[in-house]
């Protein structure tokens, strides 16, 4: 079919390549008689894989695996290189699966050859003729095998052509569990998988080398930097993943941010997010670092549209839209918009629909975020009709069409439902989401199924998880039943709540649910609380019930200054402290929690301390929380704690609470 000058294999020898009668062979440059053949002839049907390798340096090459050997053909002439690839791929596909019917002249094959493909985890490994055309993977069950096994049955489904849009690949994995390997192929590397929305494809080839080639080919496509909307990684509904991520983020965090899409975020933050979203659009999620993050993400979205080569509103459609922009709003006008927008390429249409729907939602919150339809239109019009590239080229440096652009945007946002033919279902589901958002704000209580860690003997020692709804007693039983439990099973145990870096400890009554502690921490915004399973060293015996009254040193929350007070329990319902016969402060029993211990930093005057913390939201502070009561004698503290526990309604009167 033709001869081209080429370099061949390791020796880099110049010779003539010839492709004739479905055979590829190489001859000396000046002599192409049959007996001087350097390499070949190779039958096209023996080709196992053909891959175009584009290297940035110098020339690109075509890699062909034939039979057991591999040959690299490097072309010097670039234009012919593409046609060689096309001719070889076409020839190979024609022979192998009569794919010619779907072949088009504008196809650009990156790689083609035989592979083993498994569709889904439960699928069957099948030998396929596969090719990648631009960003689409095409495969079809190989007829060569069908001819052997299915000669009689003219199975229609065997001829089914499958197209996989590689832009929508979510993840690609190299290390696949051996149980998933293809039984017909034996090599060390094993297959790799690509996961799309809802399905995983396993791909393998004849040997390590060819599988690697396939992996690299797909990988390079995924990592290809994109300049037009169509070449970005897409979501299932044809929206660039990066756009989808930004819109989701703003929907979640920015609906109530004042000046969203108008104010700019931190430039560095926006840059980082852009870089990360470009590197790994599927895997990376922007994180709410501060209140400013949402503005940065909004910037990322706006600049994204400026950076692509073709604006979201394609240039060819703009004049028609500008005509409509001058009309006044009416249902009929919106229908004309619908017709015009239908002409957009699919990715542009889907992205526009998503974006306008989002802007509409944003503008519905205009009272809070002050992003009115007009403001949003002004900000976005300049990004969606014009790109940086166009501005640099000097086109539309300043254009009369600004007003038209803004009008188009206003029309699209207000007429969104009609223009994009939003169905009642979509409208309903949006309503449900809105309602759910409102609800979630009210329902702050975590589910009772939430799991919390119980530490054993000391912090970070073999913690195990329990459901928050368990009572302290049940937790103890679980701990003892755990495998590897290293304490005597019949000795007394309890669950203790530890806060303030573990310095304040409270024994949970057996019927006390773990969730009560956790909820209290949430209320207090206490971040270092943990639950400890430990020996219940000092059990309450009920003998010593003489109530302590007398002088005790007390420090106020956050303070290190201790003063002497007379503390007593009054009427069994409140605790009062007197100074010089005058009432200083009084606390209802139900509003306070008692903890044993004190923070060393507080330098309490006596050795035996306990802390009284109010269970209200502001009762806790990260530094020296609660009132610290400092006792001279251990017995005094015990009597005091026994008494307050006894009178405290929160606990079961039969149960002791003192722990030292």
């Amino acid at each position, binding site marked *: 079919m033709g001869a081209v000058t080429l370099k061949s294999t390791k020796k880099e020898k110049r010779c003539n390549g010839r492709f004739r009668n479905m055979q590829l062979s190489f001859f000396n440059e000046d002599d192409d008689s049959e007996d001087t053949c350097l390499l070949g002839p190779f039958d096209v049907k023996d080709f196992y894989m053909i891959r175009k390798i584009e290297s940035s340096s110098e020339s690109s090459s075509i890699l062909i695996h034939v039979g057991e050997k591999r040959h690299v053909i490097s072309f010097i002439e670039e234009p012919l290189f593409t046609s060689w690839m096309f001719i070889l791929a076409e020839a190979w596909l024609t022979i192998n699966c009569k794919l010619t019917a779907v072949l088009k002249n504008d196809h650009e094959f990156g790689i083609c050859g035989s592979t083993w493909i498994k569709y889904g985890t439960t699928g069957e490994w099948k030998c396929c003729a596969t090719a990648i055309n631009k960003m689409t993977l095409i495969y079809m069950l190989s007829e060569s095998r069908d001819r052997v096994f299915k000669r009689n049955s003219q199975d229609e489904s065997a001829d089914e052509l499958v197209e996989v849009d590689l832009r929508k690949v979510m993840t690609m994995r190299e290390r696949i569990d051996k149980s998933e390997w293809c039984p017909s192929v034996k090599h060390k590397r094993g297959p790799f998988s690509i996961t799309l929305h809802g399905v995983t494809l396993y791909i393998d080839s004849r040997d390590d080398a060819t599988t690697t080639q396939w992996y690299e080919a797909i990988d390079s496509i995924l990592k290809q930097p994109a300049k037009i909307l169509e070449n970005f990684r897409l979501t299932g509904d044809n929206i660039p993943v990066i756009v989808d991520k930004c819109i989701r983020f703003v929907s979640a965090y920015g609906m109530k941010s004042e*000046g969203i899409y*108008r*104010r*700019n975020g*931190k*430039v560095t933050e926006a840059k980082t997010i852009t870089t990360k979203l470009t590197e790994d659009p599927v895997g990376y999620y922007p994180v709410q670092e501060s209140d400013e993050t949402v503005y940065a993400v909004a910037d990322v979205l*706006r600049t994204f549209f*400026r950076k692509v080569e073709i604006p979201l509103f394609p240039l060819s459609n703009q004049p028609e839209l500008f005509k409509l922009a001058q009309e006044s709003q009416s249902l009929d006008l919106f229908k004309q918009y619908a017709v015009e927008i239908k002409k957009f390429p699919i990715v542009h249409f889907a992205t526009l629909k998503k974006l306008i729907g989002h802007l509409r939602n944003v503008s519905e919150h205009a009272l809070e975020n*002050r992003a*009115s339809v*007009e*403001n949003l239109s*002004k*900000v976005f019009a*300049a*990004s969606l009709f*014009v790109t940086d590239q166009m*501005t640099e080229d000097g086109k539309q*440096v*300043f254009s009369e069409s*600004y007003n038209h652009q*803004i009008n188009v945007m206003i029309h699209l946002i207000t007429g969104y439902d009609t223009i994009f033919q939003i169905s009642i279902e979509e409208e309903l589901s949006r309503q449900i989401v809105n309602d759910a958002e409102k609800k979630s704000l009210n329902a702050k209580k975590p589910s009772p199924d939430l799991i919390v860690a119980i530490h054993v003997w000391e912090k970070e020692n073999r913690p195990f998880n329990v459901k928050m709804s368990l009572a302290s007693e049940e937790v103890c039983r679980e701990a003892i039943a755990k495998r590897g439990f290293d304490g005597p099973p019949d000795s007394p145990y309890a669950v203790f709540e530890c806060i303030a870096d573990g310095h304040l400890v409270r024994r949970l009554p057996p019927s006390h649910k773990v969730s009560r502690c956790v909820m209290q921490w949430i209320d207090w915004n206490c971040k270092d609380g943990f639950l400890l399973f430990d020996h219940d060293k000092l059990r309450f015996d009920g003998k010593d019930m003489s109530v302590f009254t007398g002088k005790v040193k007390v420090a106020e929350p956050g303070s290190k200054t201790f003063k002497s007070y007379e503390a007593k329990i009054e009427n069994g319902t409140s605790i009062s402290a007197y100074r010089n016969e005058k009432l200083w402060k009084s606390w209802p029993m139900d509003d306070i929690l008692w903890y044993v211990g004190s923070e060393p930093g507080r330098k309490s005057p006596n050795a035996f301390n306990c802390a009284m913390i109010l269970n209200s939201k502001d009762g806790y502070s990260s530094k020296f929380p609660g009132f610290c009561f400092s006792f001279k004698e251990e017995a005094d503290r015990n009597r005091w704690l026994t008494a307050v526990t006894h009178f405290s309604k929160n606990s079961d009167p039969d149960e002791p609470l003192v722990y030292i």
Partner: protein
Amino acid sequence: MSSTATQPRYSLNRKVAVMGYPHVGKSSIVQRFTQNMFPDRYETTIEDQHTKHHTAFHRDFNLRVTDTAGQQEYTVFPRSCSLDVAGFLLVYAIDDRKSFDICSSIYEKIISVYGDPSIPIIIVGNKCDLGTQRVVQQEEGKELAKQCEAKFVEITARETNRVNEVFELLLREIEISRGNLRGPPQQQTKEQTSSDPNDPKNCVIS
């Protein structure tokens, strides 16, 4: 202020542009000056033209103020902001660090377009009524003004007098640069008692 002079006098046309980061209050300043009102709305500007007659230094001026777009999508120098602009107000907000940082690059752009570093520019720190949220110190503003060889003023668009003074100051700079006014000291404006116009400290009204 814009008195209709009793004796017939022709007015001088002067064009100035107000530039700066989004959301610093460019439109507010312009509207305070031209219409003596503080807009309580929240709208993105693309470009607005305002005119006001102003009398200063015993002359009538026909001041045309271009309110520009802060949004980066819109080109920094719109068509109507062409070479006949005589002076600039470069605005930042004292509660917005970014808006201040961006000032120097806008300044560079102005200079590169006009090719004349002596073009009258006044750097304006706006929103000084929000003192509690201040993140850009006055000294930093002065420092920037020194680097740009510009004047520096801190104002709030909520107050009329100061805003008018800013525009008067700009006019004076323009007239001085055109040789229509002899350099300082000038008695026309009350607060300008400075003897050295290049010392930005003397221009601080805050």
